């Protein structure tokens, strides 16, 4: 056990600092609307953070590369899992529009749900000033 790599303290502190900064960046960026790029930016930042955690905190950078191989393999299989599933679910309506219908249909129990205020108490649809919701359990 004498030959283990000992990472300098500074490396850990710099990586943690970078993780905090990237967290701030991803929250700040979320207040702007880039349309469909929102997801790409957020996932890009998350993947960069995850890479830092895996390489430095999980020591994959200095480890025997078989461990890194195993980790990357798990991500590859996850990629296959996502891709193949989306190839099915993404194109159901294209082949047969009737198959798409049950997906977009609203679940039946919504028909019996009363409208609520932001505290989850039912509101009277006829009079907005009604306070009947107050006797709800707390």
């Amino acid at each position: 056990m004498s030959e283990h790599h000992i990472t300098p303290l500074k490396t850990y502190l710099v990586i943690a600092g970078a993780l905090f900064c990237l967290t701030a960046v991803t929250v700040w960026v979320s207040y702007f609307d880039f349309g469909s790029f929102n997801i790409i930016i957020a996932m890009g930042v998350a993947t960069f953070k995850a890479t830092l955690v895996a390489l430095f905190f999980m020591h994959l950078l200095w480890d025997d590369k078989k461990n890194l191989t195993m980790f990357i393999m798990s991500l590859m299989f996850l990629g296959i899992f996502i891709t193949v599933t989306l190839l099915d679910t993404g194109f159901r309506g294209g082949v047969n529009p009737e198959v798409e219908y049950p997906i977009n249909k609203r679940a039946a129990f919504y028909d019996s749900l009363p409208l609520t205020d932001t505290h989850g108490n039912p509101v009277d649809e006829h009079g907005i000033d009604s306070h009947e919701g107050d006797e709800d359990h707390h």
Partner: protein
Amino acid sequence: MSHDNSSPDFLQHHFHDVDQQYETAKLGMWAFILTEVLTFGGLFVAYVVYRSWYPEMFVGANLLLDVNKGLLNTIVLITSSLTMVLAVWAIQQKKQKLSLFMLIATFLFAFMFLGIKYLEYSHKFEVGQLPGEYYSYMGPEIAHLNNPHIFFSIYFIMTGLHGLHVAIGMGLIAWLIYATAKGNLHSKYYTPMEMIGIFWHLVDLIWIYLFPLFYLI
């Protein structure tokens, strides 16, 4: 290779030497991490599929989550990852006391994470933002959206499984605190601390994805 100390008491008899024992433990840990990635992977696939089916509903429903609490939990978890890695760093340098202190800090941050999660969950139980058929929230900002109960099903299952990992991690870290305090772990043998550290960083790594997916986009 430490041939001068070929058979220390922490070397199991079925291993050739301490290096082989260490590398074997690590490979086993990474095999476990692989299964963990695929366990959560199934849930990530569910998220991607349902998000592709209900894009507006996901964007509307995630506004109901409290970004501040999610951000606070992200900071707490990254800090706990740092203290965990510093616990391993300290024990490598024979700083037992510092290592013990860092482990206790990690444990407390984990506890804090679950505390904040509890506040979030209890608020959702109160207003009826619950999974599946238990969903009853029809507030003005969401009443027009299609099937928001699906968002909360995925939210509760993913953050719930993640929270379970945090709780299990707390149990493991508690054991590390005990073993370090007793002197069973030291600069020559700290394999369990490093392995539990890898587990703990995985918990952090998964939250790094959960936070933007649920709270931000």
